[in-house]
């Protein structure tokens, strides 16, 4: 890294204009402010006491910050007829089970698609790439029929099973294995008599830690935000995000509790991203799509 930096400085001397640098900095600050201010405003609003919430004109700062809105939020939620902990339990169950399933199935398949030259693997990978080109809403109705046939309507498995075969994580992991797991290491293990599964588990997997972290993060983010679903009717099977969206739908009347809810929903994925950022970027460096 430090060596790369020195090269960069040298390059700046070569063909960077001061005007260009200034222009880019100004652009970045303006765009950054536009991105950040809505976030900031929700966080600030969630900390406002009642009299500051209804100030006219509204302010972009808070004088007497309070956590009362968060207390209100939990009071609001405990009045719902399903215990609030049930929503959280559902979300955690879906997220953990779906992510775990996606990780196990996805990394096995990614390894085989990347490192075992079996006939048909090209077609299979093309199908994966094709699946990145449309949103899953399209399959919703047909899946409803499948779930009715399997007796899985109004069952959390209807959320977990499709999540296990989500393709983005598999795609990224396969590409990462292509570029960062050397065939020589695998080949020598195979010559020593290791089974394909053994090679996968003890040689390939440890080498692609950034990729499985990325898969976990993407699966986690998708599932954590699971809201209302056409497959789930019972109130006691609904998710945390669904419960929150009920509060949000009251709009500005409950601005305090709503913003508190948004901040709580936001904190978990953002924290996860902060921790894993460097790994995700490393994985993305091999995300490229060949035609």
């Amino acid at each position, binding site marked *: *890294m430090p060596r*790369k*930096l020195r090269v960069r400085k*040298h*390059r*700046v001397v*070569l*063909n*960077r204009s001061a005007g260009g640098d200034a222009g880019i900095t100004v652009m970045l600050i303006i*765009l*950054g402010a*536009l*991105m950040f201010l*809505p976030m900031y405003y*929700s966080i600030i609003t969630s900390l406002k006491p009642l009299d500051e919430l209804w100030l*006219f004109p*509204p302010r972009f700062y808070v004088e007497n910050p309070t956590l009362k809105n968060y207390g209100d939020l939990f009071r609001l939620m405990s009045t719902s007829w399903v215990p609030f902990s049930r929503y959280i339990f559902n979300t955690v169950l879906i997220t953990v089970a779906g992510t775990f399933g996606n990780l196990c199935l996805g990394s096995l*398949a990614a390894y085989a698609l990347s490192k*075992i030259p079996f*006939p048909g693997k090209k077609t299979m990978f093309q*199908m*994966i*790439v*094709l*699946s*990145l*080109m*449309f*949103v899953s*809403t*399209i*399959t*919703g*109705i*047909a899946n409803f029929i*499948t779930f009715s046939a399997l007796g899985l309507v109004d069952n959390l498995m209807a959320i977990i099973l*499709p999540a*296990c*075969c989500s*393709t983005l994580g598999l795609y990224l992991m396969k590409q990462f294995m292509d570029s960062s797991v050397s065939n020589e290491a695998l080949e020598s293990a195979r010559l020593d008599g290791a089974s394909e599964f053994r090679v996968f588990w003890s040689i390939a997997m440890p080498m692609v830690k950034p990729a499985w972290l990325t898969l976990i993060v*993407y699966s986690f983010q998708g599932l954590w935000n699971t809201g209302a679903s056409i497959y789930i009717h019972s109130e006691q099977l609904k998710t945390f995000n669904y419960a*929150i*969206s009920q509060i*949000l739908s009251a709009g*500005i009347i409950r*601005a305090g509790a709503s*913003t508190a809810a*948004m901040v709580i929903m*936001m904190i978990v*994925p*953002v924290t996860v991203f902060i921790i894993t*950022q*460097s790994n995700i970027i490393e994985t*993305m*460096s091999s*995300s*490229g*799509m*060949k*035609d």
Partner: protein
Amino acid sequence: MSQNTAVKEQKAKPVSRKDMTKAQWTWKEMKKHKAGYFMVAPFFILFFVFTVVPVFLSMILSFTSFNLLEMPKVVWLDNYVRLFLDDDIFLTAVQNTLIFAVFTGPISYLLSLFVAWFINELSPRMRAFVTLIFYAPSISGAMYSIFGILFSSDRYGYVNAFLIEYNFIDEPIQFFQNASYVMPLCILVALWTSLGVTFLSFIAGLQTVDASLYEAGAIDGIRNRWQELWYITLPTMKEQLMFGAVMSITGSFGFGGIVTALAGFPSVDYCAWTIMHHLEDYGGQRFEVGYSSAIATILFIMMITSNMLIKKLLSKVGQ
């Protein structure tokens, strides 16, 4: 890689590929690498059941009339005829979906590219921080609902308060009840949340461009950073540009949720009604399976076609 193993195979056994028919060779390879099939099987069985089969099932069901209770009845093209000739709301939905896609897709793509490019030369720590600022909205769940509060129709909405305070307007604007504001606002919010996977992919792509290429470019007479971007950076990260395009296009068709949260279901005069909403309405609420399958099929074709077109277009970069 497959050639390597093929070479070894030839050395190990006297039978070479030339002595076999293609089918024999394939069968031999299949048996030899059967572990591969076992490893992809669990994923692909689920993938077929929940993604591949549903796509085809929707296409088939789109030629039927089906309400989940009685047997499906074949009606051939009736659903499509009804969609395009009798369903004005669907035509509005197609129009809105295209407007959405045309605005959010390319703009978010270019925004991802340029922001990634702007921050490429910052120090790693600073770059990580700026990445977080730009990326956070795309992963922050329902945070976009804050725009409902910022643009609220009464005086307590921040934007209205600001406009009234400085005498631009006397009466608060009904942002989400006025058809001429709803679409632009929804596009704005969609853009706010759109710096996602594409953005990260570009950041990574820019980081992997070999620094010596830039040095060589400078010697070969590259004058400024624009030339550098066009002649060196973009051609080098072409594969990332392709992946980013796919993610952006797919994303740009899937913004239904934001519109519902901000403008309601349905939005005023269906002014921001998209194909996603139409699908939800007929599939998720009225259970007209045949009709909604036709909608899903049209949306599917739209997404795949635009992806293919862009792929063609991008393959020309640097040629």
